[in-house]
């Protein structure tokens, strides 16, 4: 019976029919194209228009990029090689890359020093940025500023050591006396640091920098993208704590502190950065005798730091204002004093809210460092606008140089932006 059943009844299936592939219009790239690019008449028109635009852009830039000349010694030679064809003259980058990155006066055989400083910067900054890393790495972060100063400026190693000892003495005094009275600890620390610096500075023999292990490089010889990075990193890292202090000071109950902070923030925010830079380079030169001026780099760092600290203070004040009053009252009801309440309850929340704003200021600040070219410091843009475009070989090369500058800045700024987004995800605790 069963035998007959299986053989004689033709339409009974003895297995599962394999699934047929979906129709050609409902699968793969075709489906994607239809759903995303050509779903209706308007979208189709837009798609075609966009394709046209992309084609026009690529047809202009690709030959320019691919025909690029990399090996000549001047713009005139580039034109000879190209024979009237479209093509970029990237030779300016291969010939002047060192000037673009390090400025034109940094000694060529010492380039390893800023390179090493940059690598060590990544090591030093890692435990600050990624708090999952072991906390012991922070010790290196504390030493790094002095190490980087010694690497980049060279000269005697005694100067950064004395500077480090001054900070160490200040920290020690604060640790010892700060517990009983904040004021004694704070001002005692300042006095101790200055005492160490004065005595130590007097002990460094004259001419110690002449035969130092690392050849001394004056600030005026720094330049290129290195200068932008140095200004950016220094000013952001200095202005963040200063901005927090100013934001807290502005909310303080003590009138003197409050008004100092308000006046500082409003004054600095009300003045264009370029004005501050002119003050740094031009006005301050009048106040010092010619031989004893404060280093121009330091003057510029102070001005940019002040500027960005005022902005960061306002960003953080926004974060503080966003916290419900209950958080402050909760901290008080737990019996925490002011520093504890700020450190444990208020600031962690306020800073988290402020991250996008702070990053915004940091990115803007980094790009603003190119403004120093107007006070004749040769940062990346200053090198391009000044020496390179003024040389007889490269006068007239604009796109290649400015494109290179844009690329360098984009890489750094995009990196900062990506980090901040990671940080926001990492700190997200509100289960939205």
């Amino acid at each position: 019976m069963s035998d007959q059943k299986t053989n004689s009844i033709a339409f009974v299936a003895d297995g599962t029919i394999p699934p047929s592939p979906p129709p050609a219009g409902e699968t793969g790239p075709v489906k994607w194209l239809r759903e995303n690019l050509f779903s209706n008449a308007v979208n189709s028109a837009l798609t075609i228009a966009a394709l046209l635009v992309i084609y026009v852009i690529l047809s202009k830039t690709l030959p320019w990029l691919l025909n690029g000349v990399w090996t000549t010694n001047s713009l005139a030679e580039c034109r000879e090689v190209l024979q009237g064809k479209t093509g970029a003259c990237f030779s300016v980058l291969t010939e002047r890359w060192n000037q673009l990155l390090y400025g034109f006066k940094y000694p060529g055989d010492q380039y390893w020093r800023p390179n090493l400083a940059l690598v060590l910067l990544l090591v030093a900054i890692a435990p600050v940025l990624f708090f999952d890393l072991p906390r012991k790495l922070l010790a290196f972060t504390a030493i790094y500023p002095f190490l980087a100063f010694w690497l980049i400026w060279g000269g005697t190693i005694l100067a950064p050591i004395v500077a480090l000892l001054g900070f160490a003495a200040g920290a020690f005094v604060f640790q010892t006396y700060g517990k009983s009275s904040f004021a004694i600890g704070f001002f005692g620390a300042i006095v101790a640091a200055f005492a160490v610096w004065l005595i130590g500075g007097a002990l460094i023999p004259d001419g110690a920098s002449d035969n130092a292990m690392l050849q001394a490089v004056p600030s005026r010889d720094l330049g290129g993208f290195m200068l932008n990075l140095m200004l950016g990193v220094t000013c952001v890292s200095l202005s963040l704590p200063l901005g927090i202090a100013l934001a807290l000071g502005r909310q303080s109950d003590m009138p003197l502190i409050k008004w100092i902070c308000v006046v500082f923030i409003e004054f600095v925010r009300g003045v264009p950065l370029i004005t501050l830079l002119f003050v740094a380079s031009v006005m301050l030169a009048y106040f010092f005798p010619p031989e004893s001026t404060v280093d121009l780099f330091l003057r510029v760092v102070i001005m940019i730091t002040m500027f960005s600290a005022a902005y960061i203070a306002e960003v953080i004040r926004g974060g503080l204002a966003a916290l419900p009053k209950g958080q402050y009252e909760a901290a008080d009801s737990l019996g925490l004093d002011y520093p504890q309440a700020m450190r444990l309850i208020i600031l962690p929340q306020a800073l988290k809210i402020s991250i996008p704003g702070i990053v915004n200021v940091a990115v803007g600040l980094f790009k603003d460092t190119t403004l120093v070219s107007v006070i004749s410091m040769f940062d990346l843009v200053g090198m391009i606008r000044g020496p390179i475009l003024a040389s007889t070989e490269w006068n007239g090369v604009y796109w290649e140089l400015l494109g290179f500058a844009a690329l360098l800045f984009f890489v750094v700024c995009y990196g900062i932006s990506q980090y901040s987004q990671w940080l926001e995800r990492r700190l997200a605790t509100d289960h939205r």
Partner: protein
Amino acid sequence: MKKTMILGAMAFAGLAAGAASAGTLDDVKARGKLNCGVTTGLVGFAAPNANGEWEGFDVAVCRAVAAAVLGDSTAVEFVPTTGKTRFTALASGEIDMLARNTTWTFSRDVDLKFEFVGINYYDGQGFMVPKELGVSSAKELDGATVCIQTGTTTELNLADFFRSNNISYEPVPVETNAEAQQQYLAGACDVYTTDASGLASTRATFDDPASHAILPEIISKEPLGPLVRHGDHEWGDVVRWTLNAMIAAEELGVTSANIGEMAAGTDNPEINRLLGAEGTLGEMLGLSADWAKNAIASQGNYGEVFAKNIGEDSPVGLARGLNAQWTEGGLLYSPPFR
């Protein structure tokens, strides 16, 4: 409060400038280095080369002064200045002299309290046209479109020139030299006008410089020269006569090539006085007897410097024009070395 601060700063500036200007020559000798202000970069006039060494027409003046004072043309600290920072850098004592294609004007000389020690380049506003236009004089430019940088004196000079010649033009305002270059090449204007040296250096960057002509008319005066602070006449004399020595050397036929034999003594007493074989000119300046010899030997005479940096065989390709010796129809005229 801001006003009093500025007044205070200015009073302080006066004091500082006064203090700094006491004995610049001695300061430079003690320091062993000349602080010379230059531009941040201008084709042919001052720019660092691929090795980071400064080169150019203005740079040569700095080096010549360093050679005259210190005997070493490399003992110069070049301080790059922008159009905005140059005068304060000089007034504050940050630099000892400024050689930065700066136009000698009344207000800069008198009001800003500087002393122009001479003129090393006579510039003036000129016109550039494509050769295919077939124009040989600016007076034929009736009805032309002119690319002109806004907010400059060149704009006013242009209006004056066209009005006094009773011809019309249509201005195409541009912001920077780079923009003007693009507009002109794209054919947005028939004529580009700016300083003649700027026109020449702009033309030098073109794909095909030979198809553009600079018209012979020069419609304004732009005498460029090195300057020092008011009130330090000894130092001003050193810079002035170093420049004059370079100009006189060309007139007298002294070059960096033949200076060795000339310095040993010649039949021409002026050459002997200039190069220190006779007389005590160096001593009067407070320098060594061979001051001018050092300056000329290191940089060459005026003509050599001109030819090397901006002359007709250089990429900038400027003709001598007004900057020829007075004996050849130019304006260069050094007072006698006596």
